[in-house]
């Protein structure tokens, strides 16, 4: 199904998509998208949505299955509390992406903004993953409780990541391609070198990532990565007296 979204309000457009999904439509191509919010929000089926243009906030919120390809930049709040599915953005994205994300994959070619992956979680085999090719703003992985985040810094900009990386982190793992100055880090994380299992783990995702965006896999892997993990599962366990 092809929709020309020029001048369309998000509400009738999203309803059109929901209704079409309910009647069995599997593939959507949305042209002239310009800021329409909530595309893919709450969809539970394995449909494919290609977006030509810049979608609005909360793309894929509470999404549980679809694959969304954005052939432009994204805005804020992408993959908000996403449960399963894939989002691929061929550009940069804004703030608070992957908030409380609990499954699925979210690949971004360029930079990401502030508060990426806050409250990201995992449960058994359901492990969310975010990979960004550029740099990130402050609060990367704040309160992270699970999942995998990889930041590549492929555009050579510096610093790679802003302040308060992994503040309150008590689960999951962050891989950053390059060095992170300790003063950027939250108190709750420690820096480690990658083990063989780590390299194996991220290689699988990064191969796929490179295929999407045309990066050279060997070049991506040629640099040294920093691994960030939480120091404790209970960072604030000793704050209280009964």
């Amino acid at each position, binding site marked *: 199904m092809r929709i020309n979204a020029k001048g369309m309000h*998000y*509400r009738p457009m*999203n*309803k059109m998509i*929901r209704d079409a999904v309910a009647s069995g439509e599997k593939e959507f191509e949305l042209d002239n998208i310009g800021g329409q*919010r*909530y595309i893919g*929000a*709450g*969809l*539970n089926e394995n449909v494919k949505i290609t977006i030509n243009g810049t979608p609005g*906030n*909360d793309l894929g*919120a*509470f*999404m*549980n299955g679809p694959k969304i390809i954005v052939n432009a930049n994204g805005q*804020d*709040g992408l993959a*908000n*509390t996403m*449960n399963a599915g894939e989002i691929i953005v061929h550009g940069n994205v804004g703030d*608070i992406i992957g*908030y*409380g994300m*609990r499954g699925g994959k979210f690949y971004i070619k360029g930079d990401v903004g502030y*508060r990426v992956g*806050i*409250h990201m*979680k*995992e*449960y*058994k085999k*359901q492990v969310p993953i975010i990979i960004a090719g550029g740099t990130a703003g402050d*609060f990367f992985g*704040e*309160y992270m*409780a*699970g999942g995998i985040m990889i930041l590549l810094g492929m555009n050579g900009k510096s610093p790679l990541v802003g302040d308060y990386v992994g503040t*309150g982190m*008590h*689960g999951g793992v962050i891989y950053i391609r390059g060095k992170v100055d300790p003063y950027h880090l939250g108190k709750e994380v420690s820096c480690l070198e990658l083990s063989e299992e780590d390299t194996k783990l991220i290689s699988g995702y990064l191969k796929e990532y490179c295929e999407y965006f045309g990066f050279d896999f060997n070049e991506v892997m040629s640099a040294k990565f920093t691994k960030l993990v939480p120091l404790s*599962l*209970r*960072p*604030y*366990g*000793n*704050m*209280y*007296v*009964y």
Partner: protein
Amino acid sequence: MESQLPAEFIVNINHERCRKCKRCVINCSFSAIEFKDKVTANNRQCVACHRCATFCPENAITIIHNPLDYKDGYNWSPEIRKNILKQAESGGIILTGMGNPRPYPIYWDHMLIDACQVTNPSIDPLREPMELRTYLGAKPEALEFEGDIDNISLKTELAPQVKLDIPIVFAAMSYGAISLNAHKALAMAAKRMGTLMNTGEGGLHEDLAGYTDRIIVQVASGRFGVTSKYLNNSALVEIKIGQGAKPGIGGHLPGEKVGEDISKTRMIPVGTDALSPAPHHDIYSIEDLSQLIYAIKETTDYKKPVSVKIAAVHNVAAIASGIVRAGADIVMIDGFRGGTGAAPMVIRDHVGIPIELALAAVDDRLRQEGIRNRASILVGGSIRQSADVVKAIALGADACVIGTASLIAMGCRVCQKCYTGNCAWGIATQKPELVRRLNPEVGADRLCNLLTAWGHEIQEVLGSLGINAIESLRGSRERLRGVGLSQETLDILGIKHAGIGQ
């Protein structure tokens, strides 16, 4: 460091009566009672949960406050000194449970309900129908109809509504804070009584699948258990911004309480802390709140009302106005006497404002702005009796929310030790041997009885007011009178002093 803290309570055991059946020992979940030839008490461990005394077949146990704990004093009270000792020994924030025990004014008790006499006679609720039904959700500016007199239908498209057979809803208490059996009891009672229970921020346990049309599901900053299925399997969705017992701070379920089942419901690994700080990290303005409200509406295809829960704070009227304008169908305001499973004592006891004043301010403001119809108002925060419900509705609430009262109905003795996870009554605990002390069927019966009784009482009061529907009382402040309140308080509450006529 050796503790200098004396015991708060003394457990007296009458050994002449005691048959040494050890029922008290088995029942004590705080290890305060032991058996060595005879029953002995470790007073320091006692929290006055009264489980032992209740189940002693000989009535041989009494629990009293330790009278010699400190020299008495009003300013440096024993409690204040005890807290200083605790902190001097630990360096920690004092954590506590349940509602605010401090003697702040309870304005409900300074408001009296009007009654009819000769000119406008009262109604006999035993003989005449009394309507307690309430619909939660946004109401239109006006109703338009189409067709002719014989075949008339509503033209106005109504926003989604949730029907309550009684204007009392069970408060948000998460699975984690309270046990699964307590959750089941609340869900069963809500279904039977035509009202709602609230999952709190703990996700929805699969055992509650049969009750989803009577369940409010909550979305808070940690987004625990939130999926599109969770949002759609509900009567309505509530975004929790704040809580009366701990305004401006978040929740924190310690990892040791996250067992297999809670892990599944919250969708986090076993043993991980469930951190849910106060701010939603994607909400920094009313516009951001609106974005989340509409993300939920899109996800639920505009079929579920969306509620926003905030704590009663001094600027609550302006905040509530913003919430309504952001698209919320329901505003839930929680007052500072509200309960909680765990909160820093300094926050619980000193932050926030009473629900009575907050409710009056919010209802006033929404009316002045002409947007009162756009959202229902729910209030909670120590609603203790049916009279509180009636007064709240006369002040402008659509319905009330009861948390502590519902726990007491199920057996809670308000010992304020919920955060320890040792609840002897099987309510605020996850220990299987304690959880099974609460039979969900019995709990549901007790909750239904409480609501049935309050329903009858509300009908009696309505009868005395000469009103036959709770709808007619909503926001009718003329039917309340103040006693022993300052003029300023009366002005905020929007009621006259007793003795003043029309």
